[in-house]
């Protein structure tokens, strides 16, 4: 019911030509400017965000297109980060070499120093869109799928805390460090 009302309100607002033609682009431009402003202030990466190997705007567009796909998918996707100090688990994490170029040594335990990129997890949501992917030809269905609120960041959800291994689509990318043999509860328990 709330979603229906929300949809109706959105449809009504979007039919306002002044809103559509002037306010939307202005709001969008402002938010875009804020985004670039934040990075200009905080990242020395700033001067490197548009070079031959990496174009920030192009990359942002790819992420946006992915968002649209996730919104109309029959899967409920979650983005899961890994807390530093968590034991490395190759079933849903991938290690990348750090600046010293370390690589994993067999029979050694590792823990996560930093999650550079989160895991993507997708589970079928049986209660909605269970008949298949939302069709772009079914305008009503597509519209509702785009308007549906989806909580994609895992930490916002307290009720569902299934293992990321369940429904894993892509592993988290992490930096790791070896757990000292003589230190740490996890190491001693082996």
């Amino acid at each position: 019911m709330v979603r229906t009302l929300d949809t109706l309100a959105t449809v009504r607002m979007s039919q306002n030509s002044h809103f559509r033609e002037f306010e939307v682009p202005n709001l969008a431009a402002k938010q875009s400017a804020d985004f670039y402003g934040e990075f200009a202030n905080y990242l020395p990466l700033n001067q490197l965000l548009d070079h031959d190997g990496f174009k920030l705007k192009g990359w942002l567009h790819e992420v946006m297109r992915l968002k649209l796909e996730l919104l109309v998918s029959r899967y409920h996707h979650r983005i899961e980060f890994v807390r530093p100090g968590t034991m490395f688990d190759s079933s849903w994490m991938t290690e990348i070499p750090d600046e010293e170029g370390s690589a994993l040594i067999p029979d050694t335990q590792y823990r996560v120093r930093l999650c550079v990129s989160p895991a993507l997890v997708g589970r079928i949501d049986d209660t909605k869109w269970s008949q298949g992917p939302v069709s772009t030809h079914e305008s009503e269905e597509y519209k509702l799928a785009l308007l549906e609120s989806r909580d994609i960041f895992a930490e916002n959800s307290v009720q569902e805390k299934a293992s990321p291994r369940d429904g894993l689509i892509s592993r988290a990318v992490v930096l790791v460090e070896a757990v000292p043999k003589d230190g740490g509860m996890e190491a001693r328990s082996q």
Partner: protein
Amino acid sequence: MRAKWNEIIEKPIGTLRFESYETPATDIRDERHFASAVATVTAMSQSSSQQADVDGCFSKLSNSPTERSLALACFVAHVLRWVFVSSFHVNDSERDDMNNIYSWVAKMCKYITHEEMMKLTIPNAAFRW
């Protein structure tokens, strides 16, 4: 989906990771705009993004992450959060021919034609207030 996700994620990791970055990590953690990014990369809830929690999180490690890796992680987290949580996304250079964001995105994606999208009169999935 997996291939697309990996392709997107590999770009910043592959190209930004090895650039020099000298600012101490503490400076990043203190910045207002990066509080949520640091909370995100440390898998904390947004409500508990306190400095003590962040420090406690890294205190289990023998070596803290380097500044550049923290900057990269925050960058990725910040972009993901910006795209997935915020309502508006626009390419400034294409602003003139864009009446609404989702018709533009849909056009880019070739999911449906621009005309079809206009008939739906839904400019943005995230117009929620």
